[in-house]
């Protein structure tokens, strides 16, 4: 069961990253590209949390229930990093969507092939 869970989480993370990369690089619709970047980020965040997990660990919070007892805790650092990375990803997505709105207003399309004033 434990092993299945481990492979499941790592597998999902890599699958999400590949899916996001595919969408960001291959899709023609600007909004789909932004969604792809977002999915790519999510996969990476899942990978972060999975790397920090220690089997049978509890949440890394020092409370009276755990202090002094022999309790295994998961690594808190990757979780802290993921929180930061999520906020950054949110910011990037917001900027990207704002740019998509501007591109749509100017070109009246979200198809990347029709927006070619600069050489892509």
């Amino acid at each position, binding site marked *: 069961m434990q092993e299945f869970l481990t492979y499941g989480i790592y597998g999902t993370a890599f699958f999400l*990253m590949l899916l996001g*990369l595919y969408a*960001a690089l291959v899709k023609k619709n*600007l909004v789909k*590209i932004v969604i792809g*970047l977002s999915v*790519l*980020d999510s996969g*990476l965040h899942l*990978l*972060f949390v999975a*790397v920090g997990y220690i089997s049978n660990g509890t949440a890394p919070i020092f409370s009276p229930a755990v202090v002094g007892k022999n309790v295994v805790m998961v690594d808190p*650092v*990757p979780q802290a*990093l993921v929180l*930061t*990375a999520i906020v*950054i990803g949110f*910011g*990037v997505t917001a*900027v*990207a969507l704002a*740019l*998509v709105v*501007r*591109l749509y207003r*100017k070109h009246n399309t979200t198809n990347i092939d029709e*927006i070619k*004033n*600069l050489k*892509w």
Partner: protein
Amino acid sequence: MVISDPVYFIALPLLTAFLLPLFGKIYKPLIGIIPGLVFAFIAYISFDLYLNLVPGKPIVIQLAGWAPPWGINLVFSEFSGFVVTLITFLAFLVWVYSYNFKKVGFDNSKKYFTLLMLLVAGSIGVVLTGDIFNMFVFLEITAISSYGLTAFYKGRDSAEAAFKFLLIGSLSSTFILLAILLLYKQVGTLNMAEIAVKAQSIDPKMKSIIAILFMIGLGIEAEMFPMNGWVPDAYSQAPGPVAASFAGMLAKSGIYALVRVFYTVLEVDGIFDLLLIMGILTIIFAEFSAMRQTRLRRMLAYSSIGQMGLIMVAFSFNTKAGIFAGLFLMFNHAIIKSLLFLASGFLTYSTKQKKIRDLDGFGKIMPFTSLMFGLGAFAIVGLPPFSGFWGKLNMLVATADSNLYFVIALILLVAVVEVVYYFKVIGRLYFRQQHKEVEVHKPTWNAIAAMSVLAIVIIGVGIYPDLITDYLTKATNELFDKASYIHNVLPNLSLN
């Protein structure tokens, strides 16, 4: 000494950037004045700190009272201090230039100065930080504010350029994040000095994977070859002073991060060979693309990529002479490219297409701006008595030291190519008749002041290079001496 604390470099621009709209509500001209005061102050303290730095004793600051390796620390050393001083100096000049930039109205100048201050804070943060994840965060601050600045003008195709930049930039940040994750998994720490100690025990294959991920991720900001598709678009669509600050700050912090990671944090066999190859490819690609450009800004952007390639080649030698040449080229690129972009802002202002052939005879109608552009072009090509000459000379000496004779041939060939495309522009400026009447935009007094200061620095360093060689030598020694960096950040750990 109380007031001179490296924390101000990051805290002050970040804080005032977000308070700027409030200041604007109180009194409108404050929007333009406050950034100037902030930039002047951080430029002053960076000069103060840098000139009073004791050799071998960098200033290490702990943030929030947590000692490294747990907390985040800032390291103001001879190398990072040099880059920070360069960035703050340019930030102040960019402010002087754009203080009453014509197209910027009140609402726009609010956004412009907010984003510019975020860009400055982010670039300085990348350079100063001693924590690898913190470096990622600052890279993202720099990147997001650059997307905003690229998309600044609504009339042009700037949103397109910005989206392209964003797409490449966020893929790069994914690579950096993945590299940091793998590194953390291997060594269990994020402090750069502690990683440097523990990295020796990482499996070499894993280490190469991490190094390549870092190279892809950081290479995008350092304008490395396959990942630099954003550069010409962003430089040509962004406002003139923004292009100058991209060349002076964004690219500089990118190359700093790359160099710091490969020299101090991770020592990987063969990574410098890879850097050499990528640098050479970057130079070849950029210089020959620059020759074919018909628009001035795109030409300057490709030339900027070429210069960054040359800097990468210089750092890839892994010798003291190479680092010295690389630092000299970094200094030259920041100063001269900024001057060229600032001058081109006024040269192309009155032409619609921003094409080079529209500039015929501008030497007569815009004498000062043309003179500044010509001076910058002579300097970047590497003619004496300008500072560009000493950079190229040191580069050739360093290359000869490393016995890479084909690189010498390449550098000389590239110099010829640069002469061709820069002199094409100068020829049009001075030796052609103006073919149609254009509305002349005389440079404003503050733009003249900013460009003059840059020109004086270029000529001053060109005639008397000893002004900076002393500092460059110190920075070289700091970067080359990995053990003392580790010892200064973490006195209890040592490299064995």
